[in-house]
């Protein structure tokens, strides 16, 4: 179980310090897939990078805890953290080609990781590398081993990245929009691959995406993020059956739906500039339910069961003063 508690991240910019994450709470149950959804720029990637402690200045973790097996990763030394990265938690990125080193063939990158974390070298590392590529369902692993990243397609690069991520047998995988840069057909293949590997290896996965269809397909739990805050968290079935937060409802309404002639409805307005955060709830300028109170103070997270029998007691969280209004 990976638990993120009250994670706060700031960025120092020329125009002052902005808060990118406002006390984010996130729970990744072991062996399950948790989705993290939200618009671009709401802090999804920053969350993943902060968990890995890969934020670069001007980004800075200002508070909170990241607990992995009861150990607070934010309290570890850099050296201890180097063992956690890759070894316990691995991450794959949005642009698979850019995350591979362009001057080395795949083999060099795979065997390097295998030597680093598992002490394999020479023929053993090569064989293990080929096995990993085969596991990522790359055809002709022997040839892919000798290829440079630019000789591979985007989908193949992402498979190589998945092989690299799994090379050290991590228990947690952070997947930051793993399919966004790929063709639709390849997206499906990568998702199927991730799903089968997740089940086979019992991986704990954080899937960052803005694709609600993907969430429905893959995830067990979802957290919805807006402007650096988790505004709603729930089991997938419950969230899709009955979204509580007005922002989540807006996201749902903005989907294309099969069999429906209605045009998807957008959410008016845009996400707020981090330099000019509205007072109170950051969503209130765009919110159909907003009232005077919303502009005065932010709602605090509220645990509800929503009276939903399908959720069978699984707790869900919503962060809105007036979530009860307008819920079907």
């Amino acid at each position, binding site marked *: 179980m990976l638990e993120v508690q009250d994670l706060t991240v700031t960025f120092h910019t020329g125009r002052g310090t902005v808060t990118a994450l406002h006390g984010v709470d996130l729970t990744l149950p072991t062996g399950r897939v948790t989705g993290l959804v939200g618009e671009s720029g709401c802090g999804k990637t920053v969350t993943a*990078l902060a968990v*890995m402690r*890969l934020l*670069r200045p001007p980004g800075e973790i200002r508070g909170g805890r990241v607990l992995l097996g009861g150990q607070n990763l934010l309290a570890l030394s*850099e*050296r201890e953290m*180097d*063992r*956690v*990265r*890759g*070894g316990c938690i*691995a*991450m794959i*990125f949005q*642009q698979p080609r*850019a*995350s*591979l*080193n*362009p*001057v*080395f*063939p795949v083999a060099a990158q795979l065997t*390097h*990781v295998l030597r*680093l*974390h598992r002490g394999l070298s020479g023929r053993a590392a090569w064989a293990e590398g080929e096995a990993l590529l085969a596991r990522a*369902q*790359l*055809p*002709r692993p022997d*040839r*892919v081993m*000798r*290829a*440079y990243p*630019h*000789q*591979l*397609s985007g*989908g*193949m690069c992402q*498979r190589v*990245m998945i092989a*690299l991520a799994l090379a*050290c047998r991590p228990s947690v995988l952070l997947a930051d929009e793993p399919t966004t840069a790929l063709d639709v057909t*390849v997206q499906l*293949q990568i998702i*199927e*691959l991730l799903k089968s590997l997740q089940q086979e290896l019992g991986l704990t996965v954080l899937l960052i995406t803005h694709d609600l269809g993907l969430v429905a397909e893959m995830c067990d739990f979802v957290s919805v993020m807006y402007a650096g805050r988790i505004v709603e968290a729930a089991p997938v079935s419950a969230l899709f059956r009955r979204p509580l937060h007005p922002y989540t409802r807006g996201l749902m309404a903005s989907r294309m739906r099969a069999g429906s002639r209605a045009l998807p409805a957008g959410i008016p307005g845009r996400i707020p500039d981090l330099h000019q955060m509205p007072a109170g709830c950051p969503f209130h300028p765009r919110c159909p339910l907003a009232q005077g109170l919303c502009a005065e103070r932010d709602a605090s997270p509220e645990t509800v069961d929503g009276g939903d029998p399908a959720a069978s007691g699984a707790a869900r969280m919503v962060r809105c003063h007036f979530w009860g209004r307008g819920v079907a």
Partner: protein
Amino acid sequence: MSAPRGAVATPATLPVWTAAADAIDLLKRNPITLAGAAVIVVVALVGLAAPAIAPYDPLTTNPADALRPPGAGHLMGTDEFGEDIWSRVLWGARIDLAIALGAVVVALVLGCVIGAVAGFWGGWIDEVAMRSMDVLQAFPSFILAMGIAAALGPNLRNLILAIALINVAVYARLMRARLLVVKHALYATAARGAGNPPWRVLLVHLMPNCLTPIFVQSSLQSGWAILTAAGLSFIGLGVRIPEPEWGVMVAIGVARITVGAWWVSFYPGLCIALAVMGFNLIGDGLQDLLDPQRR
């Protein structure tokens, strides 16, 4: 498509990685680089084989045979001490190539480390390192080399050091500039995320991505190092008479050109020109050879 679900078709042209085959293939398509490489290979072979193929000892004087014009017995004639110029030119290949390689390697290693550390860590380290490079570059380079060579004393090792030192800044700047570009590449973050400590990200992942312009520069600098070495030796601050170094040999012959003994300076001068040209011609093709994406 009969490909299994979840599989990706392999591109038909997924080349097998063989550096040697690539290099040969590239040279075939690039005759200018080939010519440059050929010149340097010949100079290197001649330098290596000099003891075996030189007909005379390069340092044996023979006053009776002084200032013989090129002809039978002495292919390139003899100088005022009666030394065989052909033999000295062959031995000179060895010394001048050693100077070029030595100076470039020392400058490259020093410059790359300084530039990489400055670019990677930034802040005051960057300031100190790069302002030191400014100081080095504030002097006209030949004058600085003269000063260093004069201060250290004229011999082969100090000549190499002097030429290397005036070039450190060139490599440091190139390395730093490239590193600033690649430092925020996603693969660096990915490497960090795979558990590499920062120094290893720099050494193993970032620096190899900065080397192409460095090597291109090195090939040009090698030619330039030979020129500088010859220049310093010519004015007496490098290798000294009677060592068979091309610059020294030109210096020996200068006074005799007016009396018609052109061959004493001409042949070593020609060798300098050929070697410098060879290195310069390699430079361009090297870029194609070193960048995997341009093969």
